[in-house]
């Protein structure tokens, strides 16, 4: 069993400055997504579905909502006597240089040293995708790689913050550019890689000893000419949450049945915390079109092109279009909302009117009252 020889490390916080609105009250990993999920559910379920049963999650400040979501790890089958889920306590990221990955890995040295697994999969929590790590691991072993980087091919999701790779015909990475963007098709990183556990410890040690704290530049890029660094192309659907607009559009993509079939493949389900809501209820005068609705909603008004999280209530006569409404948000009677993203527990009073645009959806913060 390949999976038993592999452990996962998730960086819960990386890149959260890109979506400040959504991360002011939580870490990147616990951003709600797709009606009933949090971003962490994707990499975590991918690891579990690939047979990995030991995952450490590195957090920083603001991790209360993530802890609440993960609990003991039961929902991912990671509440175990042997291995399971490890929440690795926050390190002082505010003092950290760069994205703090090197320092955080250094701070969990005892966890890494005490583990028996041969390989580690490192992943950010900012990418929505259903990835089968098994295939990547098989390639990693077959090519005797030191490091395997997961990448996609296409126009870069970011203007200037991607890692871009050049591969030789054998799939070996021969050049890596950091903090770049491109209009043309390129190979860009998905924030995930496979590396030997002992090699990782050694490379982190080297970086710390040299006062080098940039994971991409000082650890990966530096290894490219020196080690066997391979690329593994992921060809499935993936959405990297690089900005608030990207977050909004990734949610809207879920209306496409092909996207849902791929992301929520029944053979590799995306697990999440169970809430035991009753099924959603549609009233007598409701109207619903092209929308994704989680359990526990009560819809008396009209919705079109919307993602509704658990427990959302839409009042009579309300018209809600192109909106992402998170858990327990309530829209009062006769309100008009268009291109609005409402965080959890927002109250829209009756007759509220709020309109954004496709490029600039309006955001209403948690517990906001409109």
């Amino acid at each position, binding site marked *: 069993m390949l999976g038993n020889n592999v452990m996962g490390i998730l960086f819960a916080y990386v890149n959260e400055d890109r979506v400040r609105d959504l991360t002011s009250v939580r870490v990147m990993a616990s951003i709600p997504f797709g009606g009933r999920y949090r971003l962490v559910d994707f990499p975590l379920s991918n690891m579990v579905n690939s047979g990995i049963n030991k995952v450490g999650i590195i957090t920083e400040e603001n991790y209360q909502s993530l802890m609440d979501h993960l609990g003991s790890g039961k929902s991912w089958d990671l509440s175990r006597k042997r291995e399971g889920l490890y929440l690795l306590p926050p390190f002082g990221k505010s003092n950290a240089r760069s994205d703090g990955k090197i320092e955080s890995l250094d701070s969990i040295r005892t966890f890494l040293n005490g583990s028996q697994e041969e390989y580690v999969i490192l992943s950010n929590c900012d990418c929505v995708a259903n990835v089968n790590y098994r295939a990547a691991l098989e390639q990693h072993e077959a090519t005797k790689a030191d490091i395997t980087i997961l990448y996609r091919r296409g126009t870069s999701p970011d203007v200037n913050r991607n890692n871009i790779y050049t591969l030789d015909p054998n799939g070996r990475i021969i050049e890596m550019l950091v903090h770049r963007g491109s209009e043309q098709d390129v190979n860009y990183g998905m924030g995930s890689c496979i590396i030997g556990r002992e090699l990782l410890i050694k490379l982190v040690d080297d970086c710390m000893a040299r006062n080098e704290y940039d994971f991409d530049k000082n650890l990966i890029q530096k290894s490219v000419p020196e080690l066997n660094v391979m690329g593994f192309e992921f060809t499935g659907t993936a959405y990297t949450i690089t900005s608030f607009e990207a977050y909004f559009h990734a949610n809207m993509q879920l209306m496409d049945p092909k996207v849902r079939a791929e992301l929520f493949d029944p053979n590799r389900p995306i697990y999440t915390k169970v809430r035991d809501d009753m*099924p959603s209820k549609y009233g007598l005068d409701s109207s619903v079109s092209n929308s994704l609705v989680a359990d526990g909603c009560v819809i008396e008004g009209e919705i079109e092109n919307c993602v509704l999280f658990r427990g959302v209530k839409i009042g009579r006569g309300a018209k809600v279009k192109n909106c992402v409404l998170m858990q327990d948000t309530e829209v009062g009677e006769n309100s008009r909302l268009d291109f609005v993203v409402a965080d959890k527990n927002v109250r829209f009073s009756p007759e509220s009117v709020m309109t954004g645009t496709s490029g600039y959806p309006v955001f209403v913060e948690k517990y906001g009252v409109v």
Partner: protein
Amino acid sequence: MLPKQEVVAMLLAGGRGSRLGVLTNKLAKPAVPFGGRYRIIDFPLSNCVNSGIETVGVLTQYQPLELNEYIGSGQPWDLDSMNGGVHILQPYERSGGSDWFKGTANAIYQNINFISRYNPEYVVVLSGDHIYKMDYSKMIDFHKANDAACTIAVYEVPLSEASRFGILNTNADGSIYEFDEKPKVPKSNLASMGIYVFTWEKLRKYLEDDEKDPNSSNDFGKNVLPNMLNHGERMFAYRFEGYWKDVGTIDSLWDANMDMLNPKAGLDLSRDDWRIYSRTPVMPPHYVAKGAKVQNSLITEGCNVYGDLEFSVLFQGVYVAPGADVSYSIVMPGAVIEEGAKVQYAIVAENAVVKKGAVVGKDPAEMENRDDWGVAVVGPDAVVPEGGFVAPKEMLDAEEAKG
């Protein structure tokens, strides 16, 4: 010796439920899906944990596989606890031989050892075919205050219907003086709900006596309770007010699901203070497409709705194709309603398929003779062929359809 538990609940889940026909061919009645994301047994199990009862024995006998798998470790109900928790109790072989559960009382009798291990003061006996939310702790308090040997929960039914029920006749203080099974001329309208609280010491004695009686059919209602009354034990009726429905028949099962859509029916499962827990598969939120029409319906996660839906309940993973029309119906997990199919006043069971243009059920208003009307049922895994028809009251069985 296990830590003492003040109360142990015993849930009678062994009945076949033959009045549910094809729905219980391969499934014990308590495992029948209900209300979009539940199964019937979720109600008594959730009532137990919400009432603070954390030791529950579930007595199974008929087709236990799916029920056992569903209950599993009891984790969805928080019943995977260190002391107590949920235990599945099946008939087993003893040194003196083995026996199926002969009746409700015998089922408990055969598990006296299970109950004794917890040394409880009280035992609550529940059935697995009722939809209701009830705080058993209040009933136990009532039982204690009356210093009763047995307390029976009762529900007020219209006097005109009382002759269909087991009726309890009581004194002014609520004490029971007579059992009247389906009386022709009822003296009261208090129907037994099949929910009992016993003082364990008393119950144990009467179960042992009952077992020694060769003429007994080992049933609570017929034997044990009347016997206790004849011996002058203190027995009380505890009035329950609120929603309660026995879902032992196709009609009542359909009715109770429809009650979920009627705010006036009193079956509100949205309250945080008394949640009904269930074990559910992991599925994405449900999707309603452009062009679909949804009116007064319940939809659960994993559904894809492209057609029309009215006064209906959809369970997990149901697919309603474009141009399909579903009204006044219950569509259970994984069922598929294809293009142009019409499903009305029907129950479509798990993983059944209604093919293109097929018709299931009929509007009672369109019946020539109203007495011929009833809910149409498509059994689990059954397929209604293209252009086929399932008549009111008919039950399509997957095995029979295969010939």
